[in-house]
């Protein structure tokens, strides 16, 4: 990708390294992908599958003529934000403590290792026992699934903070609070953001899972309901909305990361 922005004699740059080359290939691929999808979609039962043309019509129905899609997205976003927000708070706090305090790490470690390996979705039935199948359950599943990667990555970050830097801070008479704020936290940031990136993926899984099993609402509910009504065109709209939401949230994480860590290249 770096080559794309470099300017040089055009003829020296291979076609595929030029912007126009990349877009030509992408366009060609898109024509093939969507063309095949359309052709195949026209040929099968419309209760089971939809070509892009019908998906676009369905999009107009649920997003332009009515606001069904937007309220589903809003509904999903609210419970996901609460759950993931709590996961960030708890995960970061606990992660820093566990990374900086040896004893705490040893004590909690067996459980954290287990949680790391466990496909956390398996905890969902427990949540049903604890809080039933209402709105709190939906937030709780997002929280439990996404807190693990945030916590583990923050902890990994807190552990790798350079001793030398901390010693320098102490030699200059820095208090614990100062060292935490000016040395430890910035050193943890890259790991924190990596945790956020993984966490957002988990939070989305928790969100969809909760909406398919606990409260049939939001985007997950949207997909379930239109599947039950044999409306694959609208299901595809829902799925594409989930793709769009995932990409947007990931983009936001990356953008925040770039803002808070201007020294990072990625």
């Amino acid at each position, binding site marked *: 990708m770096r080559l794309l922005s470099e300017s040089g004699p055009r003829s020296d740059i291979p076609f*595929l390294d030029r912007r126009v080359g*990349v877009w030509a*290939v*992408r366009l*060609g*691929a898109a024509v093939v*992908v969507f063309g095949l999808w359309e052709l195949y979609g026209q040929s099968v039962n419309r*209760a089971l*599958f939809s070509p892009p043309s019908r998906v676009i019509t369905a999009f107009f129905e649920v997003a332009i003529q009515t606001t069904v899609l937007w309220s589903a997205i809003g509904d999903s976003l609210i419970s996901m934000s609460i759950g993931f927000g709590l996961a960030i708070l708890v995960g970061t706090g606990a992660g820093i403590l566990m990374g900086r305090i040896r004893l705490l790490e*040893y*004590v909690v*470690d*067996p*459980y954290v*290792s*287990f949680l*790391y390996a*466990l*496909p956390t*979705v*398996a905890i969902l039935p*427990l949540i*049903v*026992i*604890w809080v039933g199948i209402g709105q709190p359950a939906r937030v709780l599943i997002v929280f439990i699934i996404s807190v693990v990667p945030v916590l*583990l*990555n923050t*902890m*990994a970050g807190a*552990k*790798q903070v350079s001793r030398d830097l901390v010693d320098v801070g102490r030699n200059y008479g820095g208090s614990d609070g100062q060292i935490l704020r000016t040395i430890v936290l910035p050193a943890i940031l*890259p*790991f924190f953001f*990596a945790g956020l990136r*993984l966490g957002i*993926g988990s939070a*989305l*899984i928790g969100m*969809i*899972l909760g909406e*398919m*099993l606990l409260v049939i609402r939001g*985007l*997950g509910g949207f*997909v*379930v309901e239109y*599947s*039950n009504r044999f409306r*694959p065109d609208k*299901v595809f709209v829902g*799925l594409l909305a*989930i*793709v769009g939401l*995932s*990409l947007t949230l*990931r983009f936001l994480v990356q953008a925040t990361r770039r803002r808070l860590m201007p*020294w*990072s*290249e*990625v």
Partner: protein
Amino acid sequence: MAIATPTDEVLETSILGRARNLRGSPRIIRVGSVLFVLAMWEVIGRANPLFTSYPTEVASGVLELMTDGRLAPALLTTLQGLGAGYFIAIAIGIPLGFAMARIRTLDIALNPYVAALYATPRIAIIPLLVLWVGVGFQLRLTIVVLSAVFPVIINVRDGAKEVDRNYMDVAKSLAAGRWQTLRTVVLPGSLPYVFVALRIGAQRAMIGVIVAEMTSAIAGTGRLLLDLARVYQTDKVMVIIFIIGFFSIFVTSTLRMLQTKASPWRAESRGG
């Protein structure tokens, strides 16, 4: 690398590196901690058995589950879908990952789709899959393939691209052919990443199959888990969660062992 900018792979190794250090950590604290938590769990659990059950009850739950004949078939059903789907995902994902790393046209053409699908929770397609393939073996198979194949492709591709440029240049200046370079430089050089891909793929596959069974399949471990929860058999729910957790640990550590065997020159993976 002046500032650590962890990728998924580095994180994976740093977390696992931590797990490896654990063996050097005071065993007495860990054992003490586990015993303490078990004791607390027993005391609190007895006060409110519905909530988390308690260890002695969970232990007897193991026996009950084994004898009532529901556990073994459920596990077997899940494993069949998981195994077959994972195999297909690897068979597609590894070659495609290498191909994308080595053939630029293919990379440019496919990357937007692979990256978008990788970033999206694939479990959302389950309701539609039910319409297409029903709720049996094929549902498990399809969701496992969909869950595992994209992380495998992405990680293999990134790994094969990361292969040290210096080695590539050496191969080139010694006039190694395309195939020779692939076999002697790219494949061994990206082996650690392939194993990371296999691990992440396995984890995603397990998530996929459990969710599919909970939402729609009429059999399997996920279904059993949810059925037990609906009748508040907390002890047995706990047993199955532990089985799933330990199975996952078993798979991950087996893959890590194979990794060390396959690339002994990199026994200590980087990162951490």
